[in-house]
């Protein structure tokens, strides 16, 4: 079975930046099977109110994530996710 290392409890990792690239947005949408032209066709995204640099909702727009176990105890908390749009 998977061994859980409890020594890392409370450990904080330094922040890191993720650059949102067009190709990555498309790759992510295709992996999910979300063929919305909003993500896959630069012209459609560019003509929208959001411009052409919007990713799918679960791709990079993560501000804070908590992962809980079956007893609802928080196992991991991810925060301060930096989104860089170029």
């Amino acid at each position, binding site marked *: *079975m*998977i061994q859980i290392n409890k020594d890392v409890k409370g450990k904080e990792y330094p922040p890191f930046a993720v650059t949102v690239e067009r190709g*990555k947005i498309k*790759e*992510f949408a*295709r*992996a*999910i*099977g*979300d063929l*919305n032209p*909003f*993500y896959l066709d630069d012209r459609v995204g560019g003509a*929208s*109110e*959001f411009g052409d640099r*919007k990713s*799918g*909702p*679960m791709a990079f727009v993560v501000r804070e994530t908590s992962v*809980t176990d079956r007893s609802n105890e928080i196992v991991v908390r991810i925060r301060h996710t930096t989104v860089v749009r170029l």
Partner: protein
Amino acid sequence: MQYAKVYFEDVQGGDETPALVKPPIQRIQLTRYAGASGDFNPIHVDEEFARAAGMGGVFAHGMLSMGFLAQSLTDWAGAGRVRKVGVRFAALVRPGDVVTCRGKVLTKSSKDDEHLVDLDVWAENQRGETIITGKATVSLPSRL
């Protein structure tokens, strides 16, 4: 109709979002998702590793199913409209499983120019077992 525009005034508590039935999960999809997300945990792609870990074989990334759920919201409300999604993973998704995503409107609220709709969201497999439950908030345009 897919990608039809939904207005705040047209939505009522109790309304259900259109069910999104995803094609059966393919092993290659898990590989693609690993690459797209950067989550290369071998438990999702390496059968031998997953068996040795006592998981009985590979299973899908939880965030893949969460992405399906998010897609069901953007198919309905439009891309860029999702404000919040929070889920609890209830069961594993295996290759071959067919995931169906559903949602039901709970409440509506307006503040300034933002019109928010809170929903219960969930997904089930082909046996009707719940794999994810959660809550979501979308921001809809107003006709007014």
